[in-house]
């Protein structure tokens, strides 16, 4: 009997899918949306509690399904998107973004009373006052001492991962861990960092660092009592300062977080504590994750598939009326570009010809269609504060091979394209596309897991490859100088993967970085266009569109305007 039912079900499934006609329909996601961001000037913005989420109820278990484990949980080491989205649940930082999920961002004080005081108005001295009533999971109070210790331990070279902005700024060198050795000086603090009293923490820099309030919104400024520091092992059991604490952690299988009774909503302007528990369930691949959530059984009804809707399932999710209201779609700041290794491709006309030749529409189709990506002609994604659209090499949606040939003027450049072995179809698409414009492309596959590290090596052997960047905060300062300041090029671990170094552009970076953050926005757009028009060190391709599905009882999830991934601070379980 079972077999018959199963066979019938399979048959119905196949037949219904085969016999329904596939047509073009549905609406496009609004891609023109631009982030607006301000640093809160009114201290009231930094006060808790956060506004109630309409319809939210307390209780229940909220589940997040993801294929791979979160690479790090230790707040000082968190830097992956999953980690950054999860960390706010158990780690508070000095500042935080208030995010309406629609692009409106306000930087407020989190542990600090305000998002920072620029003491001399020159961005060199910053002061933060710690709020009253903030506590760790054991009920002990959080003071400036524990926050400073948290920042100090981010100097420890053993603790791999995590951002390096604050360390480099304090030490005023990329070699921050040789300048100040954490392990030898655990009782003291890094240069420039002081705690005049239990409520005050002070940063003094050699150069203006106007982006400090933004950088401190990352979990690496989370507090830790020195007595609770278990070194590398903290990664499996961090000590909580947020609304949830880790009660069970089986790496690669499950992470369970339960309410932290010592967290006080009145001190927190951005977080809630609706579900009794948050559970990350690791293992299912993206297809399985989405299928589980769509099936909506048991605990999966209050679950979110963190890997999103895979492109193969997009049309099913879109076409299913039962899933209306259970999907989230939103533009993200995650921008893809075809990086050009300017050390190898030194001829500007070749780089410009690549920009004319590129078929963005074809590439997006192979990537999964416009539901999951939309074309981009700028280096910064539209979600950046102060974004201005332009196209330095107008060639239409599918590229202009004739124009590219004209720019090449008879040359037939031979280029080696490095492609991850999990996305060889994208490689084929690029090869076919570019060879139409007179290029000769050799495709070499790179193991997907090694690709990032390999392309970040200065002497890597490839000419062009696909790169992706999402900024740590939605300002041009976290994009353009990171990706194109040639003075930061080192042997390995480069973010400037175009290995692009231009004195004029570097000077521009310095000029804008010294400006007040609110005045910087429009300047970054100008530099963006200048880099593309004059140098073309990359071919902007597309921005990812977030497309998620969740169970019928999951509520309050929104796509972070900062990172483009689902945020959980408002999440609740419908009762």
């Amino acid at each position: 009997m079972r077999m018959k039912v199963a066979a019938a079900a399979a048959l119905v499934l196949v037949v219904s899918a085969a016999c329904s006609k596939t047509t073009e329909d549905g609406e496009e996601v609004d891609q023109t949306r631009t982030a607006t961001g301000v640093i809160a000037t009114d201290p009231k913005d930094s006060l808790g509690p956060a506004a109630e989420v309409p319809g939210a109820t307390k209780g229940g278990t909220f589940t997040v399904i993801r294929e791979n484990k979160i690479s790090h949980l230790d707040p000082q080491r968190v830097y992956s998107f999953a980690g950054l989205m999860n960390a706010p649940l158990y780690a508070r930082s000095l500042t935080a973004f208030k995010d309406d999920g629609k692009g409106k961002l306000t930087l407020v004080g989190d542990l600090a009373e305000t998002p920072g005081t620029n003491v001399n108005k020159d961005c060199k001295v910053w002061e933060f006052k710690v709020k009253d009533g903030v506590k760790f999971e054991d009920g002990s109070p959080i003071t400036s001492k524990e926050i400073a210790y948290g920042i100090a331990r981010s100097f420890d070279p053993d603790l791999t991962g995590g951002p390096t902005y604050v360390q480099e700024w304090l030490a005023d060198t990329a070699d921050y861990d040789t300048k100040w050795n954490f392990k030898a000086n655990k009782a003291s603090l890094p240069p420039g960092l002081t705690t005049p009293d239990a409520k005050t923490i002070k940063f003094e820099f050699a150069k203006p660092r106007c982006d400090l309030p933004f950088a401190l919104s990352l979990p690496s400024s989370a507090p830790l009592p020195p007595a609770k520091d278990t070194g590398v092992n903290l990664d499996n059991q961090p000590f909580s300062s947020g609304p949830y604490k880790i009660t069970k952690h089986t790496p690669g299988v499950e992470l369970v977080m339960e309410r932290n009774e010592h967290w006080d909503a009145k001190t927190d302007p951005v977080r809630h504590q609706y579900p009794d528990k948050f559970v990350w369930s690791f293992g299912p691949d993206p297809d399985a994750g989405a299928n589980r959530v769509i099936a909506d059984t048991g605990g999966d009804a209050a679950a979110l598939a963190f890997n999103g809707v895979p492109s193969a399932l997009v049309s099913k999710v879109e076409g299913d009326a039962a899933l209306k209201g259970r999907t989230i779609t939103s533009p993200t700041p995650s921008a893809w570009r075809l990086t050009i290794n300017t050390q190898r491709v030194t001829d500007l006309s070749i780089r410009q010809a690549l920009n004319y030749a590129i078929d963005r529409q074809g590439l997006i189709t192979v990537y999964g269609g416009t539901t999951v990506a939309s074309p981009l002609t700028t280096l910064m994604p539209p979600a950046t504060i102060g974004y201005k659209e332009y196209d330095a090499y107008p060639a239409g949606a599918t590229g202009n091979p004739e124009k590219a040939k004209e720019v090449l003027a008879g040359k037939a450049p031979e280029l080696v394209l490095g492609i991850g072995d999990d996305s060889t179809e994208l490689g084929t698409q690029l090869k076919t596309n570019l060879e139409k414009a007179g290029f000769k492309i050799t495709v070499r596959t790179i193991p997907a897991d090694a690709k990032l590290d390999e392309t970040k090596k200065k002497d890597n052997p490839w000419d062009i490859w696909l790169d992706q960047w999402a900024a740590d905060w939605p300002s041009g300062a976290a994009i353009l100088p990171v990706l194109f300041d040639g003075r930061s090029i080192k042997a390995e671990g480069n973010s400037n993967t175009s290995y692009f170094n231009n004195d004029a552009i570097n000077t521009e970076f310095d000029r804008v970085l010294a400006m007040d953050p609110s005045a910087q926005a429009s300047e970054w757009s100008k530099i963006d266009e200048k880099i593309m028009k004059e140098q073309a060190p990359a071919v902007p391709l597309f921005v990812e569109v977030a497309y998620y599905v969740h169970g019928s009882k999951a509520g309050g999830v929104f796509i972070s305007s900062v990172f483009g991934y689902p945020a959980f601070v408002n999440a609740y379980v419908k009762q």
Partner: protein
Amino acid sequence: MARFLIKRLLSVSLTLFAVSVVSFLMFFALPKDPVTGMCPKNCNAERLERVRQELGLNDPKVEQYAAYMKGIFVGRDLGSAQGGKCEAPCLGYSYVNSEAVTDTLGRVLPVTLSIVIPAAILWLLLGVGLGMLSALRRGTLVDRLAIGFSLTGASMQLYFVGALLLLIFTYQLKIVPVPHYTSILDNPFDWASGLVLAWIALAFLFSAIYARLARAQMLETLSEDFVRTARAKGLAKRTVYGRHALRAAITPLVTIAGLDVGAALGGTVITETTFGIQGLGRTAVYAVRGGDLPMIMATVLIAAVFVVIANLVVDLLYAAIDPRVRLS
């Protein structure tokens, strides 16, 4: 018997030693430099060098190998970035996971065992049963159905069957829970229901091979002289088939079964991936892709131990089942 065992144990140790050496060497040929992934936050050549130094990757390979072996038997100190002192049996500290390798293994090993062992029992019973049935009822409809079933299974692929089973039973009919692993000690029902699809898929595919082999062997044995003699002597059909024929027919099956179970325990990558369960197989694949030397070594060695033990058991069973084989 004792001499045989000693000889086998020696050969087994030699095999494991060779496996450990080969996997150690293989690692150095891996495309990904393990250090790149664990470089301190702000990477430069000098820092990388320091990490290499700390990990001992610059020491002569023989010394590195010796240090690793010492860790297994007496334990070693791995340094502050590697979780400090590591007690024997120390398999090192994962370069990628911030966890001692033994902890990881302790977690993923029961998963793989829980997938393979019940599945193996299922596929053996099903396979041998079907094979015998069709051999004894040769030429009848039963034979055809049994062979048809086994051929269908043998002609399918695990990821295909798995995806179909999941789609039908879990996502559409919703009668089987999403595959997951719970310890049998915590909740035996949950343990079984979380893995049942994997067992069915594996049994369907593997039993096919056994059914075909069992049938072929059984037919072969049935036409042997000693079976005919036994029948001619007037022994009951039951005794002849059940005792003599089955025993002779099962010998080659034992070889295959031992090897299959051993190999499956070494990693059921595709099964684990299809059903989204985290066992030894996926752990091994992640280790190779991430250049995680301690984890590669451990997973390869564990897989080798399983295969080697399975081989030993097969040899012993061989002697027990087929009296014509002398252990020498």
